[in-house]
């Protein structure tokens, strides 16, 4: 067995390890909450941590396809659903933190936020767009939609990722280090796709000409 051709067993083990690893940020928050270890402003800490990991898992998910092309490790795609669902998991926690802990169901204030605060105006739909993706992530739904439509639908993840990064960019007071880092990673991941897409077009042209 090589890295290029990972056997089923190793893949399962890798998946299990990744699953546990991806839970660590959440477990750390739970641990912190139980031991009074979330610092002076726990709600802010939970909001920031869940937001950070939402973006991080979005970036990891979006790096699967480029990595697969660069390395030829085809099995990478079999980790993608889990990674994407973790992005949704942390995104949901992030949204629920805002809804319950930060605003405590103050709907008037939430509606005002969505209408008036640019970072929430963009962050909220970015989160909503993840819902249809999570709902259609099962094998059954892929089959039902058909590969072509499913892939088309799941391109919404680009909108979520861009919206998420802009959301972060617009909310920080001054220090843009983290949002800029996310923006650069996302730009790289998207430009690799554009490059491959352009190559694909050229290749199909060549085929047509020959």
């Amino acid at each position, binding site marked *: 067995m090589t890295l290029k051709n990972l056997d089923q067993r190793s893949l399962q083990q890798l998946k299990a390890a990744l699953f546990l690893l991806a839970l660590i940020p959440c477990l750390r928050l739970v641990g912190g909450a139980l031991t009074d270890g979330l*610092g*002076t*402003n726990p*709600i*802010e800490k939970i909001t920031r941590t869940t937001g950070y990991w939402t973006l991080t898992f979005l970036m990891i998910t979006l790096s699967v396809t480029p990595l697969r092309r660069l390395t030829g490790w085809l099995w990478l795609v079999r980790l993608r659903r889990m990674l994407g669902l973790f992005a949704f998991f942390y995104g949901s926690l992030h949204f629920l933190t805002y809804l319950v*802990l930060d605003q*405590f169901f103050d709907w008037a*204030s939430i509606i*005002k*936020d969505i209408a*008036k*605060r*640019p*970072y929430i105006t963009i962050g909220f739909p970015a989160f909503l767009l993840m819902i249809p993706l999570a709902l259609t992530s099962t094998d059954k739904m892929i089959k039902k939609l058909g590969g072509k439509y499913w892939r088309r639908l799941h391109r919404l993840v680009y909108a979520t990722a861009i919206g998420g990064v802009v959301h972060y960019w*617009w*909310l920080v*007071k*001054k*220090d843009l280090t983290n949002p800029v880092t996310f923006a650069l990673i996302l730009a790289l991941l998207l430009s690799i796709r554009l490059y491959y897409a352009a190559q694909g077009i050229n290749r199909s042209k060549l085929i047509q000409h020959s």
Partner: protein
Amino acid sequence: MRQTYRYDARAKSIAVAKSDHNYKKEYPTMRKRSDTRIPSSEITPRDLYNRRHFMQLAAGVSLAGLLPKQVFAGDALEADKASAYTLPDEKTPFKDVTHYNNFYEFSTSKEEPAELAHTLKTRPWTITVEGEVHKPKVFDIEDLLKLAAMEERVYRLRCVEAWSMVIPWIGYPLSELIKQVEPTGNAKFVEFTTLHDPMQMPGQRSSVLEWPYVEGLRMDEAMHPLTLLTFGLYGQVLPNQNGAPIRIVVPWKYGFKSPKSIVKIRFVEQQPVSAWMKAGPDEYGFYSNVNPDIDHARWSQAKERRIGDFFKRQTLPFNGYAEQVAGLYSGMDLKKYF
């Protein structure tokens, strides 16, 4: 009151012991800091909390004269607690006041200044008072500590980020210092400058703000009895991360209007341009009075979360000090002069 202080002093000792313990675990070969037991300076002054002793002192002896020659962060700082400005609000715990600080000179994280600010050297320290004054002077920090009677003032602190605290500061009105230098008729504004030394303040190596940090007040704001020249909090000399050895506290304005670790006070005719005005002219105005009706460009200021509370509370105009300061702005369009 005494109980509170005792409790806090003890909590602090435990915190020190704990952090040293961790330090030892992480760096077993480095002895320098792990050897630090609680310094005597932290133990002896606790006598000063003794009520009887305090009463004896109050009976005519100048408190300032009895202060140790040099006091450092954590040393006791005596103050008259019968201030007319003390609030009934529950005080934010010492640990939170000293471990959640917006002090970009050290870091843009609010947790890190407490870890990083030990590089700040608070002695020797002088403050240059200059500009439109008849008697410009360079004050030594030791002289400023004795310039007027120290008072404890329990003030609300409202951060522009929509959280708040209640802090027992120690100091005296800035007006006491201003009177000493006799401003001229041209002095319309006061400009404060924070220390600029990237060796001591590592956050200044990043250009997140234009250094040095500059803030300013209008003359009547600076002379207002609420505006405090501040040297301590919670019965102690200011911890470095809270702006040691000397800072300004203006309780009816957002926190960033209260500059820390100041080295220069300049009286000027033109309105100063503050560091935050330069960083975001549409977001941070010169006045920056706490105002629930005027939102920050990107977030609401209607409510705030008091540190330690779960539910947000309504933010009050002028942070609850409207009765004392609203008159300073009568006739002004607060939306324009935000």
